[in-house]
């Protein structure tokens, strides 16, 4: 059996973004077998999907691998794609499910590594009130990955989509497959748990709050 490999070399583009309406049209073309249309969809969504998975999984290599698997699943399931859904919502739903699978597969190992991160870095960083603003992106992400181990998979995906990806609660509900009220509940719980974990493990990055500040008053 000969496996046919496709080598693609195209003109590089910066920050490709496709309008939702165009994504639906491209998805229809891809469904009919148009490889260029599919490549355009992948190109347009690769940044956001890789960034989302990076926040879900912590590790950039894992994020890239799961992102590739996501688009492979998208391609396999294109015949079942319902264009009444936004293409991005559908892609994020697949990516989210794969991320949850990956988090489950990791289990205890990730928690252990996150704990050791706290021990190794303890006492090495500045403690002045402005310290959090001077943290590098890499450091903030490591702090997030360490703290986020206390979240359930649903809490993590809701927090990442709602708070970091800035998606609306309605869209998050569609991606996660639950009601908007459940999204809010997960979001509040995730914020509370992260706040507690940040204050417990990284007090130098959690300035003293006014009483009641940051608590949900829905």
């Amino acid at each position, binding site marked *: 059996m000969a496996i046919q490999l496709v080598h693609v070399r195209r003109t590089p583009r910066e920050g490709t973004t496709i309008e939702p309406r165009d994504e639906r049209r491209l998805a229809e073309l891809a469904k009919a077998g148009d490889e260029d249309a*599919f490549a355009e969809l992948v190109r347009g969504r690769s940044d956001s999907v890789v960034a989302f998975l990076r926040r879900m999984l912590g590790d950039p290599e894992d994020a890239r691998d799961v992102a590739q698997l996501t688009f492979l699943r998208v391609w396999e399931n294109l015949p079942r794609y319902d264009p009444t859904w936004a293409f991005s919502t559908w892609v994020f739903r697949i990516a989210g499910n794969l991320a949850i699978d990956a988090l489950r597969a990791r289990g205890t190992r990730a928690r252990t590594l996150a704990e050791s991160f706290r021990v190794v870095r303890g006492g090495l960083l500045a403690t002045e009130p402005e310290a959090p603003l001077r943290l590098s992106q890499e450091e903030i992400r490591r702090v997030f990955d360490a703290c986020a181990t206390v979240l359930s998979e649903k809490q993590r995906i809701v927090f990442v989509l709602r*708070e970091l990806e800035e998606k609306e609660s309605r869209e998050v509900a569609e991606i996660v497959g639950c009601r908007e009220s459940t999204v809010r509940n997960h979001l509040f719980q995730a914020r509370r748990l992260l706040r507690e974990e940040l204050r417990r493990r990284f007090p130098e990055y959690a300035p003293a709050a006014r009483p009641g500040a*940051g608590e949900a008053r829905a």
Partner: protein
Amino acid sequence: MNVPVCPRLGDLLEKRDGDRLSLSEERLLAGHLASCDGCAAEALRHDPVLLFARDAARGASDVLTAEAREHFVGDVLAATAAARAGRRLPVSRTGLGLRIAASLLLAASVAGVWYVRGRGASTSPERAFPVADAAGARPAQVETLPAVEDVGAVGAVVYQFPASKPGEPTVVFVVDRNADI
């Protein structure tokens, strides 16, 4: 300091606490916190979790380079091409019939080995060689019947043949019923 947004910070943070920000307000707040250190420090005193949102709003490094993106797209297309080629295989490749045939073939092989190594011995089932004895002391009278242990939970069967003479190696077959051949 950004004058239009700074005075509204308290109001925006309170709305955020209740998840009542509109999409435009959310973007306004995130963008402002990414650029105004004074408001960012105040916001972090209000809720330290905003540290992560502020980082996300500044996340220019999340964008793949053009080269990395094209490499990524190429990898995805190669994977879909490989998957498409794999789909052309006959469906029966992983079918039940082939699995049954493989199981029969393995069973015949096991029976053949058993016959060659154990001919002339008693076939009484209660004289079967216990699997647990393999690691322990061997009885003086060498048994030549296979011990069969069905590991139902993992779909495997273990056939263990005792040595026909003391000091000879023990033969063990592990047959996975789910194996694709």
